[in-house]
């Protein structure tokens, strides 16, 4: 069934080293057009590096990235954006001292063309374009339900809204593929639920979604396809259900050690603590807890 779907983004034998350390190691993945595809894996597995390779921030040592049939390797980040891939960042990168409206306007830059002269002269073409740009920004802000915040500086927004604003900004580039790096990081349950709805809405509007996420509730709830990464390589992929029951995935997340002795020691110290350890499988649902704010590349640079 999967073979029949149209592939929008095709990663083929992607490899990236940082000073001898293989961050991404012969990684393959297809992202089907119109799907929500998730990339999961423990911290340091290389997920964010894959995103940085796709969006042109890093250049791979080997492999290819085909987007809609065209090769992306060698393109600058702004060219990738122009080609139709928009992204958000794990550690938010908003234009902090600009208003929400101005933040979203930035997405339209690569879809417009007025230059210095027409801006100075205020030609009719320029004014028309400006009106369109503003209209589009308004649409994107309203889409994420943030129109009321349009004149607020990005830095003054509550955390949850900052995440949404970044998505709105990315949408303003009118992408075919939206790449989200831990969109639910730091959100509470209600905010995560709203976010899932938002992401599904975006997908339904025809934009393919590729995301990294630690919150398994989000991943399993909305993904059509899940790929699992560990140590730079893909260890499993499939539907959410398949992945959850893959022994290799459970191992990657949990390690194989039995951790009973830790707790018995701890309980000796405390006197009387519960040593009842739940079985490994349920732990998967909890990896939300280990979602870090750190960038993955850190250990490697």
């Amino acid at each position, binding site marked *: 069934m999967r073979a029949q779907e149209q592939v929008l983004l095709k990663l083929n034998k992607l490899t990236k080293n940082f000073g001898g350390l293989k961050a991404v190691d012969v990684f393959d993945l297809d992202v089907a057009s119109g799907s929500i595809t998730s990339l999961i894996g423990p911290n340091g597995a290389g997920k*964010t590096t894959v995103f*940085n390779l796709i969006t042109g*921030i890093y250049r791979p040592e080997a492999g290819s990235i085909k987007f809609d049939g065209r090769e992306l390797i060698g393109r600058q980040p702004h060219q990738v954006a122009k080609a139709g891939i928009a992204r958000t*960042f794990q*550690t938010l990168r908003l234009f902090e001292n600009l208003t929400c409206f101005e933040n979203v306007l930035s997405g339209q830059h690569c879809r417009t063309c007025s230059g210095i002269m027409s801006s100075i002269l205020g030609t009719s073409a320029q004014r028309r374009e400006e009106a369109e740009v503003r209209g589009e920004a308004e649409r994107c802000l309203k889409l994420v339900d943030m129109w009321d915040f349009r004149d607020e500086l990005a830095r003054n927004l509550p955390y949850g809204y900052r995440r949404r604003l970044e998505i709105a900004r990315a949408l303003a580039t009118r992408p075919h593929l939206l790449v989200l790096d831990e969109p639910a990081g730091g959100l509470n349950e209600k905010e995560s639920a709203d976010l899932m709805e938002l992401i599904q809405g975006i997908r339904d509007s025809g934009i393919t979604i590729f995301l990294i996420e630690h919150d398994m509730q989000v991943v399993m709830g909305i993904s059509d396809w899940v790929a699992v990464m560990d140590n730079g390589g893909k260890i499993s992929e499939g539907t959410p259900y398949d992945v959850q029951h893959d022994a290799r995935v459970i191992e990657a997340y949990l390690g194989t050690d039995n951790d009973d002795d830790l707790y018995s020691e701890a309980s000796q110290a405390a006197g009387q603590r519960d040593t009842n350890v739940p079985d490994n499988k349920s732990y998967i649902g909890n990896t939300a807890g280990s979602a870090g704010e750190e*960038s993955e*590349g*850190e250990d490697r*640079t």
Partner: protein
Amino acid sequence: MALFIEQLVNGLTVGAVYSLVALGYTMVYGVMRMINFAHGDFFMIGSYLGFTLVSSALLGGAIPLWAALIVVVVLSMAGVAIIGVIVERAAYRPLRRSSRLTAVVSAIGVSIFLQNAVMLIWGPRYRAYPPWSVPSITWQVGGIYINFMQVLILAVSFGLMVALYLFVQRTTVGAAIRATAIDHDTARLMGIDVDQIIRLIFLIGPALGAAAGVLLGLYYRQIHFTVGWTYGLKAFTAAIMGGIGNIPGAMVGGLLLGILEMLGAGYISSAWKDVFVFLILILLLMFRPTGLLGERIAEKV
């Protein structure tokens, strides 16, 4: 060949002075990420203090001339170190949390203030160290001439640089300086009083600058209240060449700059030597954007 070696020795002499001044720039930058534009003026004040001390009765002959000169250097260093600490407290500490450019303008204000203060105290005209302040001894080594001042400059500069290097690399306080340069907050968590470290930096840097000022005053004899800018700019260039924030870098950068300058003067023309130096700087930075020994800064994404 003789010309080459002669210019090399001249270059090393001037370069050693640049290194001393560059150390002040680099240490302040390393710890505070700030360019202290007033640093050249510490150098200039040092040369004026030295001038006053030399002209006074100090060189009366009670102690040998070279020892008296060392005393002059030490006293000037102490005087300027006090000024350095005062400047830090009054003009920089209140700005520590503001933007870096704010601190740059404040430093420029300090520089204008110090220059004019010196002008009011010592007068606007050129001053000259008395001719008897330096013994006119010249040695001939393998076909080239080396004079007393060159030996004194090389000995004092290298002595100070080795001492500084050992202090920073081998002592716990030195490690605290390096730690503060890496991360203020974590340094504070170690129990390091960051304010105290910064005060220490503003004691050492200006003191080294003052030593350079006295030495160069003795070497060229003529001093003026505006030379701080000229030499400050050279030393700043040296610090950047070596990789700003890096202590061995400042030493290497200073020596390299001195040698380049003197070779440029010898082989091209002294009118164009600074053009030659800046061209090399620009070329260097085009290929090594963070200087010779500067760390590679890879921005975290």
